[in-house]
C-alpha cells in the first residue's frame, strides 16, 4: 500500500471482524514493504486499549496483532484526539510497545496527505 495509503480504522475490536481483518491487511502490506500509515478514529481507538482478554469469548487478542506492527516496520500510528476524549480514554492508557502514538487534532488535514484511504 505504501505511504501513499492511509488505513482508517474505525471499528471496535471483536464486535466486527473488520477490526481484525483491517489490521491483517495492514500487516500483510507492511510485510511486502508497502506499509500504509494508520489512523485510529471513532470506535477504532478501542483497539488500542490494553488489558484486552478475549479468550472467554473465543477470540484472540487484537492488541497482540497491534504489537506485531513494529516488527513489520510500522513504528508510528496516528490516533484521533477527539475520539479518545469522547470515550473518556486517557492518552496514557493507549501505549503500544515499540510504537509512537501521534495524536491528531485535525484528522481531515491528515487524510488530505494521502492518495488512497482504505477504510476498515
Amino acid at each position: 500500500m505504501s505511504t501513499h495509503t492511509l488505513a482508517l480504522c474505525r471499528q471496535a475490536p471483536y464486535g466486527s471482524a473488520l477490526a481484525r481483518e483491517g489490521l491483517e491487511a495492514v500487516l500483510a502490506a507492511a510485510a511486502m514493504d508497502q506499509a500504509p500509515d494508520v489512523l485510529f478514529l471513532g470506535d477504532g481507538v478501542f483497539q488500542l486499549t490494553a488489558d484486552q482478554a478475549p479468550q472467554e469469548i473465543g477470540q484472540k487478542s487484537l492488541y497482540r496483532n497491534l504489537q506485531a506492527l513494529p516488527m513489520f516496520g510500522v513504528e508510528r500510528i496516528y490516533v484521533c484526539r477527539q475520539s479518545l476524549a469522547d470515550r473518556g480514554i486517557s492518552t496514557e492508557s493507549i501505549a503500544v510497545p515499540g510504537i509512537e502514538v501521534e495524536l491528531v487534532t485535525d484528522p481531515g488535514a491528515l487524510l488530505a496527505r494521502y492518495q488512497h484511504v482504505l477504510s476498515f
Partner: protein
Amino acid sequence: MALHIVNRSPYRSSALRDCLNTMAEGDALLLIEDGVYAASASAQAGAMPAGTYCLGADADARGVSVSDAIARIDDARWVALCVEHTPVVSWF
C-alpha cells in the same frame, strides 16, 4: 417486566438510545458485545438506569472496567435473567 439486550457501541449506533427511549419502569437492561462500552466506569455509565447488567466476558475481552453501578454477570446469570423477564428484546 422486559429484558432488553443491547450489543452495539453507544458511540456508533442508535441501538442503546432507541432502547433507553423505549424501556419501561422496572425493565432490565443487559449490555453485551460492543454494548459493554456503555458500562465503562470512564464513560457514560452514569446515565444507565437501575437494573443494568453487563456481560463480564465481553467487558473483559475489551479491557472495559465496569462501573460499580452496573452488575457484572456470567452466561448462567444471563439465562436466568431471560427466565425472570418477559419479553426479551434485542437491540442491534
